[in-house]
């Protein structure tokens, strides 16, 4: 939703016209001095609960901080980059890192493919089918990740799941009591499907709004020139949607890189022997399951550093598409 609001242009105000690019000054107010009273409540909450914990996360990552230190019996000691070298030398970290990237890539591509296809489909259908599909998509969007995970786990349950039953009914005997979560890849596939199910509506709704915003005349002109659907899409729709598409892609990358609930719930904390771990769950488990808080914090910092890349791209795109920050 941030996309649709942040791209909505604000009506120009008299001040803006007079004062160039600057947003309106307060009526009769001074410029330059921050409106402290208005910002104070947000600062009081955000500084101790978001900014300070980020600093603390960094601090924990350079400390030897395990169960003994957590319970206060043993003083903490500074280990420098000790936690980081330990993690970077750990083979499991690299496996988890690469499967996080692979999993996120799979989810992003699938979400965009489904979302974009359905957005185009929405422009081709009548009023009622459109309403039905939008409502169903809204329901999937609003459903909590937690309950989405429990329902899909039930659908793919080994013994009582509808999916195994149906596949068996189709004559595929291999699916009798087939455990989807036993194999690393089928487990990832199902978790990925749940993530796509949850996130394609955002892509669909945003892109549909983008397509509708393309002036009718351009489409008509293309049709008069004899352009077919594919050419129109490639030469007109896609280029005009590029800014909005970029934002949707980057948002999806950021979200899918951070998937936590679905993995944690559906694979019961990261799968058999941690085969389905992604970085986010890995950091959490290192800290809270094996009480290696320093190591968990270091993984968290590495995640933050990786996420800086799409974030910077996101800000640059916003600025380039004329959104004032």
């Amino acid at each position, binding site marked *: 939703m941030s996309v649709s609001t942040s791209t909505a242009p604000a009506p120009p105000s008299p001040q803006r016209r007079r004062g160039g690019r600057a947003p309106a000054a307060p009526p009769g107010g001074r410029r330059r001095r921050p409106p402290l009273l208005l910002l104070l409540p947000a600062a009081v*909450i955000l500084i101790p609960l978001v900014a300070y914990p980020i600093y603390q996360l960094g601090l924990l990552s350079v400390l030897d901080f395990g169960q003994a230190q957590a319970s206060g019996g043993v003083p903490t000691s500074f280990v420098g980059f000790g936690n980081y070298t330990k993690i970077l030398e750990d083979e499991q970290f690299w496996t988890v890192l690469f499967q996080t990237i692979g999993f996120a890539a799979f989810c992003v591509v699938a979400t965009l493919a489904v979302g974009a296809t359905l957005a185009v489909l929405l422009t081709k259908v009548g009023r009622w*089918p459109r309403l039905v599909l939008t409502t169903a998509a809204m329901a999937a969007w609003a459903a*909590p990740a937690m309950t989405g995970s429990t329902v899909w786990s039930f*659908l793919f*349950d080994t013994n009582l799941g509808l999916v195994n039953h149906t596949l068996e009914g189709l004559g595929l005997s291999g699916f009798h009591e087939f455990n989807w979560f036993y194999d690393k890849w089928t487990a990832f596939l199902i978790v990925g499907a749940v993530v796509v199910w949850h996130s394609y509506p955002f892509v669909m709704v945003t892109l549909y709004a983008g397509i509708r915003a393309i002036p009718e005349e351009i489409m008509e002109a293309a049709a008069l020139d004899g352009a077919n659907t594919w050419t129109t899409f490639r030469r007109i729709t896609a280029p005009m949607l590029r800014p909005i598409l970029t934002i949707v892609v980057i948002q999806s990358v950021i979200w899918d890189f951070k998937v936590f609930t679905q993995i944690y719930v559906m694979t019961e904390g990261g799968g058999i022997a941690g085969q389905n771990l992604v970085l986010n769950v890995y950091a959490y488990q290192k800290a809270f399951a094996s009480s290696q808080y320093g190591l968990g914090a270091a993984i*968290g910092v590495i995640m933050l550093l990786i996420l800086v890349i799409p974030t910077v791209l996101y800000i640059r795109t916003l600025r380039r598409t004329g959104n004032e920050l």
Partner: protein
Amino acid sequence: MSPVNSSPATAKSARNTRGRWRLAANTGAVVLAVVTAFPIFWMVLSAFKPKGEIQSLDPRPWTAHPTLESFRQVLSVDGFGRYFVNSLVVALSVVVLSAIVVFLAAVAVTRFRFRFRTTIMVMFLIAQMIPVEALTIPLFFMFRDAGRFAPGVGLNTLASLVLVQLAFSLPFGIWMMRGFVAAVPVSIEEAAQIDGAGRTRILWRILLPLVAPGLAATSVFSFIAAWNDFVFAKTFIISATQNQTLPSALLVFFKPDENDWGGIMAASTLMTVPVLIFFIAVQRKLVSGLAGAVKD
């Protein structure tokens, strides 16, 4: 085939082809809607199925004997009534507090131009990208230590959940609310000022009602985020099980090997239905808010 030379016959067949395409598209849309909604349908259906039908190795997409048995079990035996109330208390507290703070901050960043304004906006954006699960590590220790001085906000309290959810709802809320505040013409405030209204009065009596639809839309997102959160609830509520919220209670309850799918689906339904209602109820306000309820 140019439209000028086309005979009536080819035009008719072209219309037929287009009609067939349209029918295919419509059918496709409805089929995909059914596929998308199916998991939710299956969840609600399974919640109402008698235990015997859930355990049956021949699952059917209907039930002839709907029953409240599973709901009764999770609400009275497993204590989900209490968890439901806890979740509601946390989510509603977050919505109310967040709305006030978001409104004030959004006014500050849209109506004032000051040093570090862009820096602050970039920081709000970055705050949305942070993996909150990683921040549970320092936050866990912060709340543990805070609890020694102020037991009311320490671990195991609903207040701790309200505080973290409030904090993480602000960056996105302010970012979203900014557009709604910017859509209100400054001339309205200027007119009020000329009429002798003070700053406080302009803020609360004039600007607030005008951006109320936007605030409602923003609230949906803070409500959903707070209602859905399970990582903080799971991490902070350790010993005081009476203070659990729905998602973390559901996680404890979620034992696929024990096959109590009826109970799990009933609890999941209890958790999903309020958000669905909330989402659909405010969806219209969201649209009217985006369309700009204010006219110059």
